[in-house]
């Protein structure tokens, strides 16, 4: 069975609210996402209006998570007033098309904080071991 065209096969209603979102296309234990524009009230299992890109969340051998974006069409759909979901907004922020999403900042500082705490714990353990050894 061939893949559906990127132009989408979903029915299009001009006045209905659109949303640019991630749509999971992978199989079990192998996530893969299409970045597609579809009606806001439509299920992810239903045909989309248009595919605007793809996102592979699993790092490849070069430790890269690949994202493809059709910026021209994203611009077009933003001009049409399409909404953008948070994950897609984060990706667009990291790609430099949007400002960085606050959630990206939040995860970054939270990760930094847990790392700092882990390091402190390790040092504490080392100090304890040193005292017991001496």
């Amino acid at each position, binding site marked *: 069975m061939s893949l559906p065209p990127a132009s989408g096969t979903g029915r299009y209603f001009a006045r209905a609210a659109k949303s640019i979102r991630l749509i999971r296309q992978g199989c079990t234990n192998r996530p893969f996402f299409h970045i597609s524009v579809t009606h806001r009230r439509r299920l992810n299992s239903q045909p989309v209006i248009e595919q605007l890109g793809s996102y592979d969340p699993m790092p490849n051998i070069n430790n890269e998570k690949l994202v493809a974006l059709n910026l021209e069409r994203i611009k077009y759909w*933003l001009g049409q*007033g399409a909404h953008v979901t948070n994950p897609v*907004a984060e990706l667009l922020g990291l790609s430099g098309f*949007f*400002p960085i999403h*606050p959630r990206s900042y*939040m995860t970054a500082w939270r990760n930094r904080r847990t790392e700092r705490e882990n390091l402190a714990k390790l040092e504490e353990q080392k100090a304890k071991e040193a005292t017991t050894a001496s």
Partner: protein
Amino acid sequence: MLSQNSLLKRTWPMVVQCAEAHRKPRWVPVAKSKVFRVPKRPVVSEEERLELLRLHNNYKTQMRAIRRFYHEEMIKEKQTRESASSEMSQRLEAEEWARCVELNEKWNAQVAIEREERRKVEVNQLETYALKRMQAVDEKRVQAIAKASEEIKRQKELSSTFITPENLEAAIDHALANPTDYNFAIDLKGNKYLGRDTQITKPKEAASSASATA
């Protein structure tokens, strides 16, 4: 009532996999062991909350600006498309058309020259081919005539032995005087004995001589 046609024409499969099929149904109550469990709320410090608020406010403002920009661009584009029939664009289009026509004519002339050359070559080839065929046909005819004349010569030579009404009687007499018998017999060794009434004596003699020696 669903009609057969509507079922056939449906745009997506009827069996839509539900993401929460593994959850328990809504009418099943909370488990006894979990009745008094109070889920732990995520703790967000005041500092972090204020920072997130600031970031979100900034982000929303910037996003609004971006959205407005793209929306206005879309409107502008639409307007330019609608005003494409203005005088300026018409003149530009006419110039473009003239340039295209000129280029097209140039290409056409070039192609015409090439075609003429190609046609000359093709005509030459055709002529040589036709001439070759004609020559072959002529040769064939000459050969056929020669063969026929040879045949005639041969038949003329043979005609001296033909039986004609004049010498018919003589031929009949000759045939009756010399009867020819084409019948013959073959023995086991392959010896041929011509004639119907020939007396066969040799094999008997051979057999008697063979028995005498044995």
